[in-house]
């Protein structure tokens, strides 16, 4: 098997998206990670999410020896697809670091 062949197999954008929907029900969905100039990084889900929801996106890598970690994103609703699914822009989330570094008791 050539490197090129191996590489082509790994280039799938299938992701596992998990989080809580607008009914606060935990869900796990498979989706395709998309990117374009208008929406940036985005996913399409069958369910609706609350404004500002944090969702976790894990890349499904068929040939990785290590399981990919879920990455948190803030989901921003873009619109509905013709099939009635919901498209969300994925905005990166920064952990909050407001405390100064003090020695903790």
């Amino acid at each position, binding site marked *: *098997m050539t490197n090129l*062949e*191996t590489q*082509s*197999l790994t280039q*799938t954008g*299938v992701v*596992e998206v*998990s*989080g*809580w929907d607008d009914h*606060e*029900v*935990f*869900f*796990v969905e*498979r989706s395709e990670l998309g990117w374009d100039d208008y929406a940036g990084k985005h996913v399409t889900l069958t369910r609706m999410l609350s404004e500002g929801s*944090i969702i*976790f996106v894990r890349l*499904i*890598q*068929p*040939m*990785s*020896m290590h*399981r990919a*970690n*879920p990455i*948190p994103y803030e989901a921003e609703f873009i619109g509905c697809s013709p099939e009635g699914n919901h498209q969300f822009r994925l905005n990166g*989330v*920064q*952990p*909050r*670091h*407001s*405390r*100064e570094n*003090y*020695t*903790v*008791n």
Partner: protein
Amino acid sequence: MAHFGRDFLHFFASSHASLPRSVTPKFLEHRFHATDRILLSEERSSPRPQFRLFPVDISVEHLFGTAVASLWDMAYATYKSVAITPVQSSLTPCIFDDDPNERDSLAHLITDMGYEPVSTPDAEEALRLIRMGRCRVVFASIHLENPDPFDFLDRALRCDPGVHVNIMTAQYTLEGALEAIRRGATDFLPKPLDHVRLKRTLDELAALYDQRRRARSLEEQLLKDLEFHGIVGKSPAMLEVFDFTRKVARHYTNVLLVGPTGAGKELVARAIHLISPVGQQRLAVCNCSAMVDTLLESQLFGHVRGAFTGATDTRPGLFEYANGGTVFLDEVGETSLPMQAKLLRVIQNREIQRVGSPEVKQVNVRLIAATNRDLRAEVLSGRFREDLFYRLSSIQIRIPSLAERLEDIPLLVRFFLKKYNDSYGKNIAGLTRRAQTVLLQHPWPGNVRELENVISTACITAMGDFIDISDLPEHLQHRGPRIAGDEDWRPLSLEDVRKVHIQKVLQMCNGSRLRAAQILGIGRTSLYRYLKRDGYDVRPHTSGAAA
């Protein structure tokens, strides 16, 4: 502390006839004072002091005799129990008092006790120190005649629910003390402060923090010991999974992992592969529910150029990629019947065919399949091939849901905290007790994956050293206590609930009494006794079926 040791020596030295009263106490006091911290901090094996009376060193036994030496040891032990430790010195009490004289006097007193206090007359400054994690112990002076005397206490606890707020007041009343304690104060101290009580309070808190640190350290060690290839668990159900995984990994060709979504099937599959004799070979993971049949076929078996629209080049499939290693088929229960036939061919004949190619290729792969469906029921309903089911399920491992192993939650929380502290560059030490309670009451429909997401979210939002309820996802903050099977609830007697529950667990375990007893948290003998009491046949059976 030091006063006690000095007084003790003073007493014995001054009452000893052979030593001049006018000289000895001061001399001994000096010697003791000079050595006390060194002796205690260095943890000497023989703590009895040496006195340089003459050009030679004389031990306490020589000076006062063996009995006094023993008493010395007792005094030393008492002193040692209040000696300055690293924990004590890192405990920074905050003194909040609007009276400058009392504030300074208390600061000096606490400093003499070996602590390093910070003092302020400003409530906002005190709250800022609490919010920043600078102070975990607060001595706050209040005036009970104020309209809301406990306002500072409430705000301090909102800033950090783990902070120990000791209320001081000149107007002590029992009602006031009870109200303060009810609102979350650690203690209610009347002014002027009782020094012994103050010291005891500080020492107890220092010991508490020391104990917690040691517990955290032990938990981290425990985590290392109980981690099995990235899977964490100490519950009987998980220990059984680990044990069985170790056994089958060396010998399997096909394994079926059964369990709910998010329970950790992929991690178990990876563990099996790593322990197996082909652990150094490739592992290919394919989620069968993520794609349509044609794409799945192409991914698993590969395709040749021109096999279908868009097939611009020839590609190998995952079976070829992992030849000599392992293929993990997640959600195998989602595959169509035609795809199942192709998978059966791989298992039976160890051969594959790329899409669009007449060439048959031999592959040597081990297969791990996983499903969250009841495949037996799927077979009965005709949605899953019986022959494939029997091929796959020759070895079956059931991964328990998180609800079945709630005792693993604290360990999993620690595991994920470490993981996300590292990822997000944080230093969160743990969860507050009320946040822990919320996690233990949640039903966890999304299993470990949901717990991981909760901890990850909390690590992102938390600004303190501990995750509190307000850092958890919003729906968890307002959820009431979990009531198992709420929707089917009926007013049964406890005896009936037990009877029904045992039967359900036995059914879930396919009649395995050993496994059922482990899940129920009782011994097998107890299970037999309950079954017998409920009128079931408990004689040994060969089929493994339940009574």
